[in-house]
């Protein structure tokens, strides 16, 4: 029971980080109909910048803001400078350019910072609170939980309650009609990339202290898990990303805790296979077609 409570609580915290990253993939998919394979590499660049800022200023919060800003800036530069210039007749060219970008960014980080994992200090303690003799959550897990929830709620409000969100949603599903109504669709695509890259950077920043440390590849596994979640939930579904993230996060920690870490990737892949067999469009998928 004690183990279960601890694993469940940790799993929820971990799941929300995966959900955030999956949501960033959903945002970009909706905005540009691209699965951004460079999302992890872009996020890690932002995290390197963030911890450089932490090193210079001594303030974790300055680093957090730097991660968000770098993410947004990278998103804008890559969309305007690169992805926009790729032909959009099929999704394939964009994805291949994104994969190329992964190599460029990771090689660049390798040249600048070397191959080793740099230890990273969490802003709060990572030893768990003990409630009635049962270890529950660490203060850092709690921090992750609160930040992830706040961002998820904020994004929900942005997309559903603001005029910017209305334009983002309309451009995503009906770009041509949106342009006819005066929506600046190219700008919405850029904003989608900025938001997405920013959220991914935050997810990676939250994750890194609980992992081995910071290297060019620190977010690769997170990408695989989040990609699984996005496919599970349906690439068009923000709610799917949230619930899928929680399910996968809890699954990973449970399997790791009870069976051993080696089984966790297998469990995730088994889940992915099962969902693809039963509901190929994803559990929460809307209809796939755009309405033009």
């Amino acid at each position, binding site marked *: 029971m004690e183990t279960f409570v601890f694993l469940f609580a940790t799993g929820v915290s971990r799941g929300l980080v995966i959900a955030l990253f999956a949501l960033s993939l959903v945002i970009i998919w909706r905005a540009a109909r691209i699965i951004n394979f460079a999302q992890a590499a872009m996020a890690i660049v932002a995290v390197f910048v963030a911890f450089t800022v932490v090193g210079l200023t001594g303030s974790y919060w300055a680093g957090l803001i730097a991660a968000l800003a770098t993410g947004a800036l990278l998103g804008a530069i890559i969309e305007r400078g690169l992805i926009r210039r790729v032909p959009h007749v099929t999704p394939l060219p964009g994805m291949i350019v994104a994969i190329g970008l992964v190599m460029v960014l990771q090689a660049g980080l390798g040249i600048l910072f070397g191959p080793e994992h740099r230890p990273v200090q969490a802003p709060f303690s990572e030893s768990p609170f003990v409630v009635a003799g049962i270890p529950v959550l660490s203060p850092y897990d709690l921090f992750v939980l609160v930040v992830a929830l706040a961002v998820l709620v904020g994004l929900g409000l942005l997309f559903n309650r603001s005029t910017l969100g209305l334009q983002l*949603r309309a451009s995503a599903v*009906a770009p041509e009609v949106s342009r*006819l*109504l*005066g929506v600046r669709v190219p700008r919405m695509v850029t904003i989608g990339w900025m938001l997405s890259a920013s959220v991914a950077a935050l997810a990676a920043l939250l994750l890194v202290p609980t992992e081995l440390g910071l290297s060019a590849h620190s977010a690769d596994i997170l990408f695989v898990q989040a990609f699984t979640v996005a496919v599970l939930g349906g690439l068009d579904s923000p709610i799917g990303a949230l619930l899928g993230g929680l399910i996968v996060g809890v699954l990973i920690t449970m399997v790791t805790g009870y069976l051993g870490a080696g089984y966790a990737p297998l469990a995730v892949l088994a889940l992915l296979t099962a969902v693809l067999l039963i509901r190929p469009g994803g559990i929460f998928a809307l209809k796939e077609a755009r309405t033009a």
Partner: protein
Amino acid sequence: MTEVVTENQPRRTSPPMLSFQSLTVAYTGSPVIDELNLDIQDGAVVALLGANGAGKSTLLRTASGLLAPRAGRVQLDGQDLTSVAVENRVRLGLAQVPEGRSVVTELSVDENLHLGGLWRYRDRSDRNAAVDQMYEMFEPLWRRRMSLGHELSGGERQMLSLARALISEPRVLLLDEPSLGLAPRVVAQLMTLLRETADRTGLTVLLAEQNVTSALSIADRGVVLGLGEIVVDAPAADLAADPALRQAYLGF
């Protein structure tokens, strides 16, 4: 080609509201629209007729900027639109309701209307007032305001597309086959609404239709396209009344 100039709109002093000049449009190879010239005066309701593939939709999509012409140009009230992007043409007063009930199906009726009014009314209370005005004009939409686009009937969707275009108070409205797939009673309602709106607001309308009778019943002028060229341009009443013309160009 006969030029229609009404008495109260002298052609010398003011430019036509919408003007196509030596317009040639091609997707690949041979042109769909070939060296077309057409002037539409302020406040006119013009029916654009012709068989499938005659180039009606192509002409409208070129006017709104979704297609770029190979040669020639489109002018709105004397202003050349060649370098004006789609989303800025609507800001100049040129609105298009594209074919196929272009409601954004994932958004509610209310959100669709707000989307149409966003650029026009920066202030939220102004926009709310404009949306309310549309609900007054299109009463069935008020009952459905919280429904998502995909829950609406064909007639409701067409009504919403029209209301969403009108909310920004355009000067010119381009309509592509609004009657497609609708019951005759609904078509008649829609056409009446359109004519009333044009009369009340002075809106200029270019209405592409396969439904010749309905279109001519509310139009001032009928223009028949055949293979990218204008084959007839006459007052709507004449077109509707002349059996020889109808037989020759409209096939009934």
